[in-house]
């Protein structure tokens, strides 16, 4: 099996706060991430795809087309945005990196089969800081 992974970056802010908990519970659970003014990260996004290597091109996927797609579906909506206010998926969803990974996967999935015929989305990895990495795999 051949899997190709491409790395992207975007910078965004968020605040971790759940409406179903009290102020104090939120503060205890999320700590600094509950700061009412929010805070930001340089997120690293890895998109892994798998599939056969095309005999003519020697490629699993066109890197140029993948870049265009990821920019259109993800980066343009997240980069230099506040996720709580600017990304509708987080209107009622806490933008933890777990939830961010799920949202990114859902958004990547939407037009995937129209854009890529032989390459399958294999994994989505979101790195919030150098110490926190979240992965959805075998999608």
């Amino acid at each position, binding site marked *: *099996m*051949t*899997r*190709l*992974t*491409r*790395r*992207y970056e975007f910078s965004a802010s968020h605040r971790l706060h759940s409406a179903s908990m009290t102020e104090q519970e939120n503060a205890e659970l999320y700590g600094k991430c509950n700061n009412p003014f929010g805070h930001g990260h340089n997120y690293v996004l890895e998109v*892994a795809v798998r599939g056969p*290597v095309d005999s*003519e*091109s*020697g*490629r*699993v996927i*066109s*890197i*140029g087309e993948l870049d265009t797609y990821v920019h259109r579906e993800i980066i343009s909506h997240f980069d230099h945005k506040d996720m709580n206010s600017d990304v509708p998926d987080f209107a009622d969803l806490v933008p933890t990196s777990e939830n961010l990974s799920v949202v990114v996967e859902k958004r990547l999935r939407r037009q995937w089969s129209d854009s890529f015929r032989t390459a399958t989305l294999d994994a989505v990895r979101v790195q919030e800081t150098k110490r926190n990495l979240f992965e959805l795999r075998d999608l």
Partner: protein
Amino acid sequence: MEMLITRKAEFSASHRCYNPQLSEEANRALYGESADSHGHGHNYVLEVTLAGDPDPVTGMIFDLKRLKEIINREVVDPMDHRYLNFEVKPFDKVIPTPENIAREVWNRLEPQLRLSNAKLHTVRLYETDDLYVDYSGESV
């Protein structure tokens, strides 16, 4: 639970991604700058992962000194500071995309490990920090 061990190696090589059966425009669209006529280079980073159980006597899945020797002999020595398209077979005929390089590395290493208790699990090849390929054989 499967136990994996990974050894890293690096080599620097130049390549050009260009399919002579396609037009200039098609090559440009497909490979971008990688189709430029004089080629260009990368510091490739290779991660070779073996799967197996630690030997009860040595406590090792595989002797990493031997693995390093095999990687150097089969991959690093023949490819380091080479122009892959001209100097390293099969890249005179096979386009040296990272997908094809990863598969070639697998094909060179896998036979060398057949007699050991460890199995080649994955070959990961970084072309840049932002792009890497994993290859784990055809059967998986």
